[in-house]
């Protein structure tokens, strides 16, 4: 089996997460919304415990965590949930960036169809949004600003602290898609100016199918979001439906480990990175996104003369890598992220993404470089 180097798509699950999920599947299977007996009360207790663990990662309050099915749903609630407020308040200007995940770009496009004016900010060749672009785009009637924390394709960290300074004193709601950075880059998301944070369990060694929208209160009031679904009133009425307690509890465990093991994980990722970058350098690979801004567990490179599909196929018995995000890799459309960074068509077509984690075993980089060199002939 090839060694898995696609951790930005999804991560392996921590053993203790599996144990927690299994417990709530097999033994403690109560419904958290039925706290009329110990089964239900214990389920509700586990959910509230998990809520606290997720909140702690970003220093939010427990009641500010709304469990969802994952970051895509969280992004949709955070963006489309403001449509009603924007229409009644006459604030119809929405800002986002060209490198967002489709889970942000598509709901934003829907806001455009609903009559909102959408402004998509370009990014720099280093993969980062220039904060000045946001300063120039902001207007009094700006309703919503949506920026990601870490790009899923390049691993480049976005300048959230600088964006927070620009947004200070402005009424616009600020949503951050943190699917790739939650639990990995801790301090940024603790900035109280960030109103909404979208996260996924399966990017932090938790189960798939669970995530959260963290909605920080302003002046003790929740952001004026409207639900996209109705029926049941769970999760403060924003996300009805029976909570998947095993997944929620597993997500909580994963959040706990993300804080507890943060430094040790980063250290392992940094050590792995040295081998990866050395091997890629031998191949003359060009990194997409500035190395100084990239998190330790990911790298996006273009290998001159070798198309992405050919490289991925040739390497599939040694390492499992991808070319773009998991949600668009099946469509074979060129990366909109690299295009937004101004990469040439050839550079885009030869790009691959490698992403690893603290659980990744050693890779024989000699094998990798030998295969790719052979392809060049």
């Amino acid at each position, binding site marked *: 089996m090839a060694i898995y180097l696609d951790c930005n798509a999804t991560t392996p699950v921590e053993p203790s997460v599996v144990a*927690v999920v299994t*417990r709530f599947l097999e033994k403690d299977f109560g419904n958290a919304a039925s706290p009329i007996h*110990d089964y239900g*009360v*214990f389920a509700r*207790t*586990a959910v509230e*415990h998990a809520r*606290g*663990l997720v909140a702690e990662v970003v220093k939010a*309050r*427990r*009641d500010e965590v709304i469990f969802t099915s994952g970051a895509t749903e969280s992004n949709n609630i955070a963006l489309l949930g403001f449509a009603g407020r924007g229409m009644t308040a006459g604030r119809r200007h929405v800002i986002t960036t060209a490198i967002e995940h489709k889970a942000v770009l598509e709901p934003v496009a829907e806001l455009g169809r609903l009559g909102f004016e959408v402004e998509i900010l370009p990014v720099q060749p280093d993969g980062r949004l220039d904060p000045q672009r946001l300063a120039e785009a902001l207007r009094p009637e700006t309703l919503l600003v949506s920026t990601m924390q870490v790009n899923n394709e390049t691993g480049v960290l976005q300048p959230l602290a600088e964006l927070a300074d620009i947004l200070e004193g402005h009424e616009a709601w600020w949503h951050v898609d943190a699917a790739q950075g939650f639990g990995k880059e801790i301090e940024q998301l603790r900035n109280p100016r960030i109103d909404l944070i979208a996260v996924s369990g399966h990017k932090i060694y938790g189960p798939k199918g669970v995530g959260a929208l963290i909605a920080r209160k302003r002046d003790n009031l929740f952001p004026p979001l409207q639900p996209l679904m109705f029926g049941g009133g769970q999760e403060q009425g924003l996300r009805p439906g029976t909570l998947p307690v095993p997944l929620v509890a597993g997500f909580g465990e994963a959040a*706990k480990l993300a804080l507890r093991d943060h430094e040790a994980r980063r250290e392992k990722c940094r050590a792995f990175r040295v081998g990866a970058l050395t091997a890629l350098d031998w191949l003359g690979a060009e990194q997409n996104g500035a190395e100084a801004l990239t998190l330790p567990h990911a790298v996006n490179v273009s290998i001159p003369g070798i198309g992405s599909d050919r490289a991925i196929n040739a390497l599939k018995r040694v390492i499992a890598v991808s070319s773009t995000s998991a949600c668009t890799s099946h469509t074979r459309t060129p990366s909109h992220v690299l295009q937004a960074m101004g990469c040439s068509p050839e550079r885009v077509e030869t790009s691959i993404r490698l992403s690893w984690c603290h659980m990744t075993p050693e890779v024989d980089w000699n094998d990798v470089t030998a295969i790719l060199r052979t392809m060049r002939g």
Partner: protein
Amino acid sequence: MDQLFRELEEATIDQYDNKDLPKWLADPVFEVARNPAKYQGKEYLVEILVAQVREYDIYAETGCCKWAYDHEDLKRTLRWLEE
């Protein structure tokens, strides 16, 4: 494992000495904190207890929604630990 029980003891001391945790509730929590061997295999519940002690507030149920843990929560978790 011992680290978790140390955290429970520290949180209980803090709540008892500096905040509102009553003696009748602190005593059984100390009993758990000081007997790690007895509660082996129940660490998940002990973790919940640590969080509940840290966020204990006698006024947790006042207002429109419950925002902290109260004595009923702690008593229930202590009961589950003995089952």
